[in-house]
Each structure stands twice: as structure tokens, then as C-alpha cells.
């Protein structure tokens, strides 16, 4: 297992470390590995998979995403904006008698209010997702990891980040990952 050369293991002083990465062969393996890491109480780590694995959130002990809140908020904003827009333009600022219909009622502009709601909610969700995922981020240490390329194809990867209190020095992380049955463990430099 521990067959990597020392120069890998010894972090040079001037460069910062992002974390330690290792690969797994199959979905099942990485799934169980994740559960173990979770149980070990790690916080700053992540699992990289070509597709969302069913149940992985639980396996990693991730909380439910809070994007729905954003969506709801944005939706309400949209509805209110729609109301204000139609009321101000057609009833308050320049009321005109149109087909003897009321200057403003919630009925006639309802399609507009409806669409505003959906539009705003959608924007909320879309941008919420990117913001919560800290995207766009075009430069990332992982992109320099050779085997990371395969993650978007069929590789499965776990990365323990240096910022986690359990990390200590890389060797500990190495051993831990090794004990999980991780393959070609590498140091990810930042």
C-alpha cells in the first residue's frame, strides 16, 4: 500500500496543500468508504463521482440542501413585483377605462402575476444553485490531479481537505484512506 516515494509524501514548506485524494473502483466501495469517513467525524472532505449516487448524501451525512428556501423567497418576490407592476401601471399612474373592466383586480392580470412568480423563482433556484456550489470557479487545485480527469467519466474519488481538524499531517490522511481501500493516493497541492 504505502509504496509512494518520499518526495510525494514530504510537503515542501513554501507550497500549500489542498488535501489528499484517492480513487475507488466501484460505486459500492466509495459508498462504504464515505460512510466510514463520515463516521470518523470528518467535515471538510468530498466525494467526486461522475453522477449523483443514490443515498450518497446520507452516506456523507450531508444536510438537506437549503435551495428550496431561496426558491420560495424568490417566488414570493415575483408575485408581489407582478402585483405592484400591474397595479401601478394600469390603475395608479394612468387609469384608463378599458372595456369597462376594473382599473385593477387580481383577476385580469393573474397570468402575468403567475409568470412573474415562476420567472423569479426559477432565477432564484438557478443562481442559488451556483452560489451554494461556489460556482463558477474555473481554477481549482483538483484540476491539476491527473486522475481527476477520469472522475467525470467513470472514476470515483475521495478528497480529504487539509482544512479539516482531523487532517493533521498528510501521512495520517494517507493511512486513513489506505485503510478504506483507496487506490493511488495522491497529495493535492494548492
Amino acid at each position, binding site marked *: 500500500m504505502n509504496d509512494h516515494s518520499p518526495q510525494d509524501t514530504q510537503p515542501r514548506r513554501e507550497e500549500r496543500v489542498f488535501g489528499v485524494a484517492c480513487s475507488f473502483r*466501484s*460505486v*459500492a466501495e466509495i*459508498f*462504504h468508504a*464515505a*460512510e*466510514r469517513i463520515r463516521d*470518523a467525524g470528518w467535515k471538510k472532505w*468530498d*466525494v*467526486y*463521482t*461522475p*453522477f*449523483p*449516487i*443514490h443515498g*450518497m*448524501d446520507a452516506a456523507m451525512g*450531508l444536510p438537506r*440542501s437549503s*435551495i*428550496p428556501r431561496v426558491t420560495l423567497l424568490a417566488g414570493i418576490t415575483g408575485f408581489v413585483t407582478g402585483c405592484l407592476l400591474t397595479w401601478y*401601471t*394600469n390603475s395608479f*399612474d*394612468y387609469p384608463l377605462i*378599458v*372595456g369597462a373592466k376594473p382599473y385593477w383586480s387580481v383577476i*385580469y*392580470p393573474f*397570468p*402575468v402575476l*403567475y*409568470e*412573474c412568480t*415562476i*420567472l423569479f*423563482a*426559477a*432565477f432564484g*433556484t*438557478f443562481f442559488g*444553485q451556483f452560489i451554494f*456550489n461556489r*460556482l*463558477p*470557479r*474555473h481554477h*481549482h487545485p*483538483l484540476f491539476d490531479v491527473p486522475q481527476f*480527469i*477520469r*472522475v*467525470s*467519466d*467513470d472514476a470515483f474519488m475521495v478528497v480529504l481537505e487539509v482544512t479539516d481538524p482531523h487532517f493533521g499531517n498528510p501521512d495520517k490522511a494517507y493511512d486513513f484512506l489506505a*485503510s*478504506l481501500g483507496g487506490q493511488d493516493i495522491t497529495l493535492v497541492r494548492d
Partner: protein
Amino acid sequence: MAHASEESTANREILAKVRPAELPRPSLVLNGRSFHWITEKVCGIVEEPTPLWWKVMFTMALCLAAFTFGGLAYLVSTGTGVWGLRSPIGWGWAIVNFVFWVGIGHAGTLISAILCLLRQKWRTSINRAAEAMTIFAVCCAGLFPLFHVGRVWFGWWLFPIPNQNGIWPQFRSPLEWDVFAVSTYFTVSTLFWYMGMVPDLATIRDRARTWWRKAFYSFLAMGWRNGNRQWCNFEMAYLLLAGLSTPLVLSVHTIVSFDFAVSNVPGWHTTIFPPYFVAGAIFSGFAMVLTLMLPLRAIYRLHDTINQYHIDNMTKIILATGSMVGYAYATEFFIAAYSGNPFEKFAFINRAFGQYAWAYWIMVTCNVISPQFFWFKAVRENHALVWIICLFVNVGMWFERFVITVTSLANDYLPSSWGYYSPTIVDIFTFFGTFGFFSVLFLLFIRFLPLLPMAEIKSVIPQADPHAH
């Protein structure tokens, strides 16, 4: 840690013993393909050198699209009179085409959103293309309401922009609702489509070898890293967008149908329109999906990812919606007769037997009769036949919009001002050009963007199950 590993090995042993019952579940990807196979398959389409057929098709599409834009240029410079419109038929092909294209668009959203909500896994292999189809169809649709107005350069008056005249749009008008509905629909569909594509773009990015590909796909992929913490938010957001698109898609065609239902023209002023338009939209949409996917499947040998199971499902939906549409036709007649309103009665009888009877019967044949063949398995499995029937359905749905729009206007309240509408060559060119326009966009899509959602397909094959072997 050791303890943990023991436990997991224990699990493995138990699982090894377990023999789960073999549920006869049609597999979504045949021949037990691997993750990598899927990646190769999809990315290959984008990475292979541009095939000749693509270049030919693309050139042809461009030429065809030129008709639309030539026609529109002439229209704007000369006036709406270059179309066949007249009093009392104020709306002709333009609005027909608009409704037609919007209807096409709906299947995409439906497949991606509603089926997603219903956890219909089989959608995965077709939803990307279907969504693309939605967006491009809406592009084509959008041209018509914009350009059919007499003074298109004042189109911005339809948006609530503060101006020195202190006058605003009029929100009681269904056309104003359309402005909001269609623009919202376009925006949301695009967001949904793009967001779903980000992980696949990341895949292509990672495989990219040349500079421009790297730059292009890196930019689009937004630095996606496939981390599960991202997947977590991503899936939630995707689900929410699906949840938003579903009422949206229904509302959009409802509002489109309001253009007619809210007016007081006999034959338009009908409460059945919203559901019936939505059904019609799904109907035509699925037909168009098949019209596009069957050739693609053949060209790119996607028989493993788009298999008979998908085609069966879609043809069945077409059969169902087609029957609904047929039922709606019947209901219209019944209600008209039942209403005892002479104008309504006349409007429908005139539709079926009046000067536009030919259009009406084309519509009935294509929309109600032709899909009935899908009752038969043999037909569903004969893909050439499926494709032809889908063409019929597309034609039929266009005629449905034509019948609704034109016949009602041509003979309404005052017999003194009855008229007959027939299109001019400009009408015809402008419409057929839009197929070119659509093809241009779609060809660009299949050339440069992932045609199938790799991540999603991977997630539905057996290997993706953490508890399987």
C-alpha cells in the same frame, strides 16, 4: 476504523447471500454497457471530426432559414399586406405557426420536467434533445407574434418600460399575457436545459485536448467538479426547476389558448380551450420528438440508449393525447349544439362543412385517426411507420391551429363581412423557412453539445446502484 471495515465486509457477505427476486424490469440501457462506454458514445459525437452529412444538412438548413428572414425583411419594409390577411381575417398563418411551434416546444419541457417529477427514469435518454427542441421551437415561435404586428419597431411598447409619454402596456390583453408567458417560458427552459447540461459539459471539458475546446467547454462548465456536495445542491435545484417548469408549461399553453378563448369570436370563445390546447401541445410535441430522435438514433447508433421501451412509451403518450384531442373536437360540437346559441352552432357546423371543410377533415384524419394505429405493437415496433405517423400528427396539429384561427374569423357574426383567407407566397416561405431555422439550431446543438445526458444515464444503469454488485 478496523471495526468499520469489518462491518462493511460483514455487509458484503450478507449481501452476497441475498438473492433478490428478478423483477422483470425493462433495462434502460441495453447490453449492460459500462460508464465509460456511455461517455465514449456521447462525447464521441461531439469529438469526432465533422461528418459530411452534417455539413450538407447544415448548408441546406441555412438556405431554408434564409427564406424566413427574407420574408420578414420584405414584410417589415412593405407592410403586413404582403401576407394574405384581410378583413375580417386579421390573424392568419403567423399566429397559426406561433401556436404550432409553441406546442412543439412543450413536449421537451414535459419530458424533462413532468417525467422527472414522476421519477420516470426512461426520460433520461431523450430529455436533453427534447429540451433543446423546446428552446429552438420557442425561438421559431417567438418570431411570429413579434413580426405579425403592423409596426414591429414599436414592439418594445409591450414591455413596461418607463417613458416620457407616461403610458404603459395594457395588462388585460391576452397578447400582453403572451409576452410574459412566452418570454418566461423561454428563459426558464433555457436555465433548466443549461443547468442539466453543466456536468456533461464538465465531462467534455475534461476530455478536451485542443485549446479552443478546452476554453469553450471550461467556460460553459463553470468549473463543475462532480463533488457530491455540489451534486446535492444540483439535484435539489434540478428538481425544483422541474417542479417550476411543470406548472409553467401548462400555464404557457393555457395562456396561448387564452388568445382565442378570451375573445368573443364564435368558435374561439370556449372554456375547453386550455386543457385541449395543452393536450394538443403534448401530442404534437411528442410527435416532433420522435420525428427528430428516430433519425438521430439511426445515425449515431443509439439503439442501446434509446430503445424500444422509450419508443413504446412515447407512442403510447401520443395515442393517449391524440385521443384526448379527438374527444375535445367532439365535445366542442356537443357544447355548441347544447348551448343553443345560433352563432356557436353555426361556427362549428361551418368548420366541418363550410368553405374550410377540407382543412377540418385533414385535421381530423391526421390527429384523431392516424395515432390510433399505435394500439398495435407491430406498428409501434415498425419505426419507419412510427416516424411517418408522427409526421402526420405534426401536419394535423398545424391544421388544427389553422382551422381554429381562420375558420372562426372567416365566418362570424355578420354575414355581410364574411371572407375567405388564403396565404400568399410570402406567408408560405416565411413558415417553411422556420424549419430551416430550427434545423440550424438543432444541428449546432448535436454537433457541439452533449446529445444525451451522460450523468443521468449513468445514474440509472445497474452499476450505479451502491447496493448492487
